[in-house]
């Protein structure tokens, strides 16, 4: 039985945990969470369905089904992870399974923004380093200590300089990654923009 996930709140500085490696390029959000699970009005029960079809196909041999990975929190992926649909259900499902951070060669744009919006930092590393981690994970447990401020990942045997967008890093360190309140601080500017956009003058109200 997996332990219950905790939703991140406030400042995110350190993430320490066991890595789970998932090999493959262009793993799309349909695979992370198939569309039939999008028939829901909240995200609560998505965790158990993450990678449902891939897991069924592999009959217990999928990384997300292996006993040794059940407490893993740091997902290691290859290139263009999370491509395809904009469904936030994908990172929500990963988070509810227990993932707290992702390290990969590259991420699709919308998936990346969705992760940042819900408090999952995504880091990039060169292909060679990812392969080194994935090979290591093949034979033994890898526990990483991620220091977000210095963009460092440390373990007993391996150390990496992680890359993360400066804007995302600042948000996590300051605890302001829940964008709504930050955006609302500029309420006057928003109203000014609304009043001054050319096309809002010549378009009749939609209602």
């Amino acid at each position: 039985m997996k332990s219950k996930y905790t939703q991140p709140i406030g400042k995110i500085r350190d993430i320490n945990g066991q890595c789970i490696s998932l090999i493959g390029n262009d793993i799309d959000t349909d695979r992370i969470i198939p569309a039939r699970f999008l028939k829901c009005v909240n995200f609560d029960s998505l965790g158990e369905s993450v990678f449902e079809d891939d897991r069924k196909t592999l009959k217990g041999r999928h990384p997300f089904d292996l006993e040794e990975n059940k407490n893993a929190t740091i997902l290691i992926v290859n290139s263009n992870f999370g491509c395809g649909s904009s469904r936030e259900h994908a990172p929500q499902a990963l988070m509810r399974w227990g993932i707290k951070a992702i390290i990969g060669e590259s991420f699709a744009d919308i998936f990346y923004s969705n992760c940042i919006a819900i408090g999952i930092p995504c880091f990039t590393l060169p292909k060679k380093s990812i392969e080194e981690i994935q090979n290591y994970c093949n034979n033994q447990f890898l526990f990483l200590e991620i220091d977000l401020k210095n963009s460092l990942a440390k373990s007993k045997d391996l150390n990496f300089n992680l890359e993360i967008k400066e804007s995302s890093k600042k948000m996590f360190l300051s605890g302001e990654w829940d964008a709504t309140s930050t955006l609302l601080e500029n309420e006057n500017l928003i109203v000014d923009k609304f009043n001054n956009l050319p096309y809002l003058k010549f378009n009749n109200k939609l209602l």
Partner: protein
Amino acid sequence: MSQDTLFDKVWDLHKVSSLPGGSDQIFIGLHLIHEVTSPQAFGALKDKNLKVKFPERTVATVDHIVPTDNQSRPFKDNLAEQMIETLEKNCLEHKIRFFNIGSGNQGIVHVVAPELGLTQPGMTIACGDSHTSTHGAFGSIAFGIGTSQVRDVLATQTIAMNKLKVRQIWCENKLSNGVYAKDLVLHIINKLGVKAGVGFAHEFAGPAINALSMEERMTICNMSIEGGARCGYINPDEKTFSYIKNKLCAPKNEHWEKALTWWQSLKSDVDAIYDDVIKIDVSKIEPTVTWGITPGQSVGINQQIPLLDELSPNDKLVAEEAYEYMSFKPGQSIKDVPVEVCFIGSCTNGRISDLRIAAKVLKDKKVSKNVKAFVVPGSEKVANEAKLEGLDQIFKDSGFQWREPGCSMCLAMNSDKLIGNQVSASSSNRNFKGRQGSPRGRTLLMSPAMVAAAAINGKVSDVREFINQ
């Protein structure tokens, strides 16, 4: 860094502030919502005790979960019924205009907004759906967002976003007969790869793009995201303006003149600076079909599925996965691969011009007895227009099922699904593993004309053999 492109101009116009982290706060001129990615956003709004800031700038319709056989309420599927009820309730409570089933204006959100005249040049448009890039066909800057950002747009009419780089994809010469916008965009994605667009907005330009109709341009921009670009756009021109004129929500009378003057000023400068420029010669493109599990894995109808050695090192891993999943042999021909299901529809190719082209191929022909074929119009308007033109009858006479509007088997959230490892010829946008509802289902993406040809022959076929007869 790009300068003086349409993207730069629209971005600057909508920039509300520079945020402390280095991203920009961008005003969203038009927000489109549907039943799948909005309920949690409304829920979050409630949790935070926030209101919808400008309800008049959000428009809703229902598309992903609607059944296409029987749309009477309550839906047979309880979960689908719950989702549409939640949307109805949220729209009512927050005074958001909702185009429901039977309104005459319901349909796939990216088909509906343009046909209502909501989509206009120079706007920023966001929707909790990755195919929002479709609206870029009008010279708007349009992109998909996740549910947390839907919440942000509802609460603030803005989002936090890093400015994208801009790549111009210059398309030279003319598409040959029987080759359509879908073939062009599949070709572009194949040449550039599925992640080339990450971090970019793609500007589609050049004589081949100028020659396209508005609906064809929507097909191109729609699939920007399949090439990794969250946003794709085309500079507006007279075709754009005349498409919008007289639509339900288009500016009227003296407002129209003002709109036109402003729109005509909106385009990338001739000496604009791009972060990257790519040139594509479209004259050699053949009808194009995907053979794998990403939209980048495609070949011309007369080509063979590539051998592993012919692929770049980065493409090999996913190619091996694709050969296995699709049960195709490297080097085999894509032509004559048997198909079991044929689907015409989706936000990529479910518009009236798509139906017209397919119907032309199908007229006086019969669908192969081994094929289940169905057509799902992109919207109620498309369906009504098709009926006026008698297209529905041509489809039915040929053996196609004529369905009600919705997203249907593009992503199979309703009961339209592949079974087992069926092969489908599909006019939709994604051939991902399991995308069309069966975890083993196999999707071949192609133009609507090519789907019609495949339906007749029961196998992947060159539509030019039909239209050049």
